């Protein structure tokens, strides 16, 4: 048995003779439980948490106040006006829905592709999905003007004796986003039940035991329960996969099914889905890098996880760049003068600044990820990912606003400017997102413990890595330390 001499802390180098370890620091069942559960159990989070929470909850309060002002006075407090009837509201909606998609992608699609590295980040990313969808849902709900009639969107028996028009993409959107929010929540919660049971069983106070106990539903981790649970999880992953692709396709139909030049293009569904995954992964990395540092998760969420996500960002960034160029090609090749005008106007018209911010952030910035140094250096990847998030917000702004501001009727052309309420609500939505996220970090298991345990070397398909050292029997449960597996990398066994 010869030992490979790779630095113990490096799992980003691929060696064909071994499988790169998914976790570092010689993790055992016990240490994983300790690392993850301790975050939710410690009485006081780090000071940085309080600072971040103060900022984000202030912004959330600003969002709530701005929304109340909007509802009380009317949508005229926004900068939207004909011809730019959709602006920040829809830009923010599409942006946040897109952010959510990375969570479902990591939890469902990578699960079906048996990408085991997902286990360390999926809980985190799924939580992000839920919070992003909450932020997204606010904007279409309040942009309808009379928000107290939002239930008119639903097909319910009413005294007006009318039904919604099921041939409208806006109604498809209601069903798509509603289903997406529901399924994401179920998936997230189902995945969390075993970990909530862990927190329940470790609880030292009665309140915590009851609170976690209720949500753990009495989970006993029994063989029969696990059998059905694994099957249900796989089924939900199989359902969520086409769902996530459909949701952003349907969101893109809101534009593509219309006849506005610059919107009416068949490339929108795949282009929107790629962009959604692109922005979502960038958001995961942006959040994950500080979170793993603050909460001591560096051994579970390793550089390899971050590098893998950065590779996905690079790939989807190139897809997005390809979509930008093909739009121009089709505008020229299609020979439609209005379409040609729309795209030339996008790049060189009154919003040229927004267009080039978008191109710089979305196409140029992620090219840095061709360099391994950037892919594996946390502060560098955070800079790139923040740029990507800015770029993806501007992508939606460019699509929505440039097309509308120069539509078919030149006499109606108008230069859209956001108002203070618009900008407050945009910042406030970030506040809401981070507030929910910080609460999640504080009270819930941030890493899917049961799933990470299942992919510890001994526990997945036999013979990948190393057999366990003979476990020491522990007569006394209190001193039982779990089964320790050596962390030295060795070549077969």
């Amino acid at each position: 048995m010869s030992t490979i001499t790779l630095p113990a802390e490096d799992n980003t180098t691929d060696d064909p003779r071994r499988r790169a370890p998914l976790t570092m620091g010689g993790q055992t069942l016990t240490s994983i439980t300790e690392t993850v559960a301790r975050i939710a159990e410690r009485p006081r989070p780090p000071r940085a948490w309080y600072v971040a929470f103060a900022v984000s909850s202030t912004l959330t309060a600003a969002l709530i106040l701005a929304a109340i002002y909007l509802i009380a006075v009317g949508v005229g407090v926004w900068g939207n006006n004909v011809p730019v009837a959709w602006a920040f509201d829809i830009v923010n909606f599409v942006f946040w829905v897109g952010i959510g998609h990375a969570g479902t992608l990591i939890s469902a699609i990578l699960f079906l592709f048996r990408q085991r590295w997902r286990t360390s980040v999926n809980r985190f990313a799924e939580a992000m999905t839920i919070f992003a969808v909450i932020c997204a849902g606010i904007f279409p709900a309040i942009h309808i003007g009379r928000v107290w009639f939002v239930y008119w969107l639903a097909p319910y028996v009413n005294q007006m004796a009318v039904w919604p028009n099921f041939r409208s993409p806006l109604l498809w959107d209601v069903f798509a986003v509603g289903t997406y929010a529901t399924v994401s929540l179920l998936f997230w919660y189902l995945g969390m039940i075993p970990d909530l049971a862990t927190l329940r069983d470790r609880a030292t106070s009665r309140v915590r035991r009851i609170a976690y106990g209720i949500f753990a539903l009495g989970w006993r981790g029994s063989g029969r329960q696990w059998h059905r649970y694994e099957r249900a999880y796989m089924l939900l992953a199989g359902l969520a996969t086409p769902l996530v692709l459909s949701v952003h396709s349907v969101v893109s139909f809101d534009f593509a099914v219309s006849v506005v030049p610059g919107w009416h293009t068949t490339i929108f569904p795949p282009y929107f889905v790629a962009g959604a995954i692109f922005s979502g992964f960038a958001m995961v990395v942006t959040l994950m890098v500080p979170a793993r540092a603050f909460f001591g998760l560096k051994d579970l969420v390793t550089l390899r996880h971050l590098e893998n996500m950065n590779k996905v960002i690079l790939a989807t960034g190139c897809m997005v760049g390809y979509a930008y160029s093909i739009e121009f090609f089709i505008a020229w090749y299609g020979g439609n003068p209005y379409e040609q005008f729309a795209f030339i106007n996008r790049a060189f018209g009154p919003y040229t600044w927004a267009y080039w911010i978008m191109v710089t952030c979305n196409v140029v910035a992620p090219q840095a990820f061709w360099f391994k140094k950037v892919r594996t250096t946390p502060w560098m990847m955070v800079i790139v990912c923040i740029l990507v998030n800015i770029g993806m917000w501007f992508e939606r702004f460019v699509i929505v606003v440039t097309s509308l501001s120069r539509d078919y009727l030149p006499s109606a052309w108008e230069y859209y400017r956001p108002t203070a309420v618009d900008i407050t609500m945009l910042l406030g939505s970030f506040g809401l997102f981070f507030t929910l996220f910080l609460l999640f970090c504080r009270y819930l298991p941030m890493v899917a413990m049961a799933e990470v345990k299942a992919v510890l070397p001994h526990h997945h398909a036999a013979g990948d890595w190393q057999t366990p050292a003979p476990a020491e029997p522990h007569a006394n449960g209190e001193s039982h330390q779990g089964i320790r597996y050596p962390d030295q990398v060795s070549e077969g066994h």
Partner: protein
Amino acid sequence: MAEKEPTIADAPGGAVAALVAQFAGPDELVEAASQVRDAGYRYWDTHTPYPIHGMDRAMGIRPTVLPWMVLAGGVAGAAAALLMQWWMNAVDYPYIISGKPLFSLPAFIPVTFELIVLFSALTAFVGVLALNQLPQLWHPVFQSRRFARATSDGFFLSIEARDPKFEESRAAELLQSAGAVAIDVCRMPATGREVPTGVYWGVATLAILAILPPLGVAWYRSGAKKLPRIHPILDMDAQPKYRAQAFNPLFPGGMASRPAVPGTIAQGEMDENTALYLGKLGEQWVDEFPVPVSMEAVQRGRERFNIYCAPCHGLTGEGDGMVSQRATRRAEPNWVPPLSLHAEPVRVQPVGQLYNTVTNGIRTMPPYASQISVEDRWAIVLYVKALQRSQHATLDDVPEEMREKLR
């Protein structure tokens, strides 16, 4: 590991409910599980912090029916979505859009797809909980203190006392020989499983409090109310404008309504032909119809009369319309019953006066000028005259050849 004697921990309590044995690791647990399975137990289980591969086979677990349930959920979702869209958009409220068929499948696919996923996912979620009998917040195995590690790093096997083959000493023996490192005896609580009464009262109070608001709304909305319903949100009820007859400090005299500029006539108020528009010539009611009298006009008048007048005046003009009957039955204090159109005071009125009553109303009868055109008002008057004639006709009014029949 079997050579080392496991400890058996027992705690005071009621009858034995289950034995919980801890094992050193996953491999030992899989081995023990196959032994317990071979011993023929039914109510037993393994407890691990994560799913262990090979455990299904070792325990002899048959594949779950969950996938079939999810398939059924998906089919139900597709059927519900297609039926809903067909019924709502093609049958009950047909939308004609771009000349497409009322049931246009391509446009209905997105919602159908979403509902397939939604129904399937809900089935999977509810199904896995139901099949796993969750939520089940109390179970005998939780009596074991050691068992808390089952969700962290411990590997356990439990045999429940409700198993027909269960016998405490033999089960413990089996677990020992299978390699248990520790065994806990779990007992039913001696005092029974009781929820504190405070919880019951709390839940009951909350339930009653939660029911009160919807009950209040239901009570308020049921039955007839004298006041208009409450509008929590005023929508367009409250408009920033001055209503007619309201006080307006902006104008001298405080009148919100502006008087006509002297010497002008508003559009649609050019009433030069006073006989036609007002039913008057000077101060005198006209006695001749200012419009042509014809059979068509009578028919038109009957139709309009039956729509606008009959609800109060009755189809024959006796004053016995449904509104009048109901108001009389309920003894409405402000109700003035309509005069019979065949009463002497009405019969002697000239047509101009009848026309004026239709136009401007009288007593509690509202004006109909805004609802019925001038020509139709005259047609109604014509029909009223015909009705009056019919109720006071003599044989002389009937054509000669018909008189013999009626005599």
